[in-house]
């Protein structure tokens, strides 16, 4: 398959892993679209939703700081396990001769036009903000995503955490992106085992790794018809970032289970 890969920032390790594993599986990455991180509106929105600590975390990831006990360490382990040397998309693109385009917004008319001109079989979404109709139409509705929760029950943000809080089995869903929030047709649901010693960060990391592998596995489906949205998918209540008190509650629950 000939694909375009999106990412929210250059050092997105999960996107590097997808690009390399897709290449090794015989697919062609025609281009990588990376959203420029340092835009006032984006930073402002980020701070409002995730607070100053969230911003500090993001800044650390942006500059490629060493992974601490977060989802990053699981992805780092994947890169090591798969002998992937690059830690940024720009490095990976240079090495593989793939054009990398830094964009202000995936939905900007110039980006959409660029995507249309590439005439690819599909897009693999590995970050970059909510996709609007023009982008989805330019991709002919063939955009794949890995969502860190079981769809359609747990849609929205912090899905791994919400699955645990809501008592749903933790899972990663490989699905098609449509105009709703995590409402597109489901390709595969990959269960995530909660093991003794697991922390929230580790579980998130497991989800990211399962998502990377699931997306690469799913690329073949771009050759045929894709599943449609389930009728009641949008009726499930959307999840948002966890409030500190619920995050704390969940962390203690995991601990009480015999986790960390």
């Amino acid at each position, binding site marked *: 398959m000939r694909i375009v890969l999106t990412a929210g920032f250059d050092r997105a390790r999960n996107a590097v892993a997808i690009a390399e594993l897709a290449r090794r599986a015989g697919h062609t990455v025609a281009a990588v679209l990376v959203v420029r991180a340092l835009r006032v509106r984006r930073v402002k929105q980020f701070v409002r939703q995730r607070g100053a600590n969230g911003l500090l975390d993001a800044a650390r990831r942006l500059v490629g700081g060493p992974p601490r006990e977060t989802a990053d360490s699981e992805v780092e382990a994947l890169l090591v396990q798969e002998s992937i040397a690059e830690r940024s998309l720009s490095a990976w693109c240079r090495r593989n001769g793939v054009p990398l385009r830094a964009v202000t917004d995936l939905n900007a008319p110039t980006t959409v036009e660029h995507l249309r001109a590439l005439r690819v079989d599909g897009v693999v979404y590995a970050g970059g903000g909510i996709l609007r109709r023009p982008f989805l139409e330019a991709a002919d509705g063939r955009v794949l995503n890995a969502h860190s929760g079981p769809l359609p029950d747990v849609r929205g943000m912090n899905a791994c955490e919400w699955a645990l809080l*809501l008592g749903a089995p933790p899972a990663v869903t490989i699905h098609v992106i449509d105009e709703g929030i995590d409402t597109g047709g489901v390709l595969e649901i990959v269960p995530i085992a909660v093991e003794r010693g697991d922390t929230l960060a580790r579980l998130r990391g497991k989800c990211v790794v399962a998502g990377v592998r699931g997306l690469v596995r799913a690329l073949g489906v771009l050759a045929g018809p894709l599943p449609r949205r389930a009728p009641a998918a949008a009726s499930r209540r959307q999840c*948002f970032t966890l*409030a*500190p008190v619920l995050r704390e509650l969940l962390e203690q629950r995991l601990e009480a289970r015999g986790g960390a």
Partner: protein
Amino acid sequence: MTHLTLNTLELYARHRRATLDWLLRSIEHGAGGSCAHFSIALGWSHPYPETTGYLIPTLLANHADLPELGLREHALACGRWLLSIQNADGSWNGGLHPCKGAPKPSVFNTGQILKGMLALHRAEAGPEFLNAASRGAEWLASRAAADGLWGGGDYRASQTPSYYTHVLWPMLDTWLETGERSVRDSVECGIATVVSRIRPNGVVAHWGFTDEPRAFTHTMAYALRGLLECSRILGAWDDIGARTVPALEKLLRRAELDGGRLAGEFDDDWRPKARYECLTGSVQTAINLLLWEHNEPDLRIVNAAAKLVDRVCSTQHLTHPLSGVRGAVAGSWPIWGRYMTLRYPNWAAKYHVDALARLSARIEREAESACASS
């Protein structure tokens, strides 16, 4: 069974305590009642019978957790003060006390004071409080028009605002104690009128102070709370309570998308009409979300309530040198916003305490159920 301790709950307890301390200072300066507000320029205001009335249940509800504050005694003193200023016809006057100009009985204020009278009656403070509540409720019922609302009332709009559900609720609550049928009949008419004002997008028409198609979150929350509480008392979730859900869904989403910040005013199409936050409206909304969640359990709703409460906590000064600011909740944030500009109202503090208590209890319940199942 192991008990979980959460740092955030301890933080909530600190905010609750500081806010209660501020409320007690508002009573110390209130010459019998609780001062309506504190302003840095003008100091403490005169006492406000309306909000003193509904502050009483808050004081009583927190007494068991914080016996050292003497909250029950303060509640009793406020109740006696309110009894002393009740009119012979059962009503209470509007505005601060003493009134500027000629005293005028007020439907809304009378309704709010009923809550204090009932709470004292239920706390076994004496039969005089139920008697006062009963007379107040009968006065309200006798003044109601055929639609169950009040024509020519003490409001700034051309018809009774929908937030007068906050009067219907204590009337109904009084009926629970007295069984006075005329009160319940009147309330049922009023509820039907307000429910008929609910639009498909969840907006309750006329829920603002004026006829303008915009409202502070404070009065929006009043309108919704009244419906939710009437629904609870009547056991009529499907017919009344569930009708508030579209509005609550909108407010939840707004709060979530902006990290607990809720615009202080919305228009009838849910467009934010203010850059400031009406903090009392935010915590009142948190309470409403928790009331909804009580009927339709879902931690995603609790999450939004927590963000609203966290946001209001983040605006509080717990160590400010000015005792009128320490532990207070501003009317608007920033404080120069249009709602209670540059003032710290006692009702914002009251609803903040209520929201903190309700949220903490909900989280504790969740933590205990997790402990029990582990």
